């Protein structure tokens, strides 16, 4: 089932606040074979962005197993640090169909407790249609 075209431009509710802990940063760094060096690894924002994407997919009843990642970009205003309280707000930026797949472009703004932008995470998701 193709994803509904009217979704373009829709802003989804912010994810619940996520408190960044040193332990969480250490765990993420270790899971990618690295070491915690006082700030979040460069791809840590995916934890926030993924939660927003998951909520979006669930609300649209899209099966996660049909999704592959097409493109990802992170643009940081400042590094993420332990103690930050972050939320992600996802907007559906574009939607197109290619060869039976939906190409869903999303932009998630990650903001801190003061409402300041910390990172913009742009993701393209490929929804593989049922054969």
């Amino acid at each position, binding site marked *: 089932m193709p994803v509904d075209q009217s979704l373009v431009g829709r802003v989804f509710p912010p994810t619940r606040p996520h408190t960044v802990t040193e332990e969480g940063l250490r*765990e993420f760094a270790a*899971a*990618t074979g690295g070491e915690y060096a006082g700030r979040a690894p*460069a791809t840590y924002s995916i934890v926030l962005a*993924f939660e927003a994407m998951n909520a979006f997919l669930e609300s649209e009843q899209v099966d996660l197993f049909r999704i592959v990642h097409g*493109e990802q*970009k992170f643009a*940081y205003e400042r590094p993420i640090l332990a103690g930050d309280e972050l939320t992600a707000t996802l907007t559906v930026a574009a939607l197109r169909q290619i060869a039976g797949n939906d190409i869903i472009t999303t932009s998630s703004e990650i903001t801190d407790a003061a409402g300041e932008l910390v990172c913009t995470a*742009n993701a393209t998701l490929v929804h593989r249609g049922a054969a």
Partner: protein
Amino acid sequence: MSLPSQTFTITRADLVKYAEASGDHNPIHQDEEVARSVGLPGVIAHGMYTMALAARAVEAWFPGAEVVSLGCKFTNPVVVPRDGGVTIEVGGESKGTDDGLTTVALTVTCDGQKVLGMPKAVVRG
């Protein structure tokens, strides 16, 4: 300026650990049958895991530097066999520094084939 290539091995156990840490429990990264059912050649690494390894290479080239932006397309899946693992190679080319920001063009390959499209990082300091 060319930066020294770095290699990383990815195993199925790494993907389990990464799923836990990232919250991405998509079964295409764990379950052969599910992966094949959506037309993939087998269990594939999270694109974000490959990107995280590319970021580690950047950290190693520029110790202590802040990554200001990082992006890529996921052009070819990294298939991870049940036994052993698969090796990826991360190469980099520093494109110069402007206003304190250094742009690095990356090349990420698996078995000689590019797996990320136009991977690029910008670092400060």
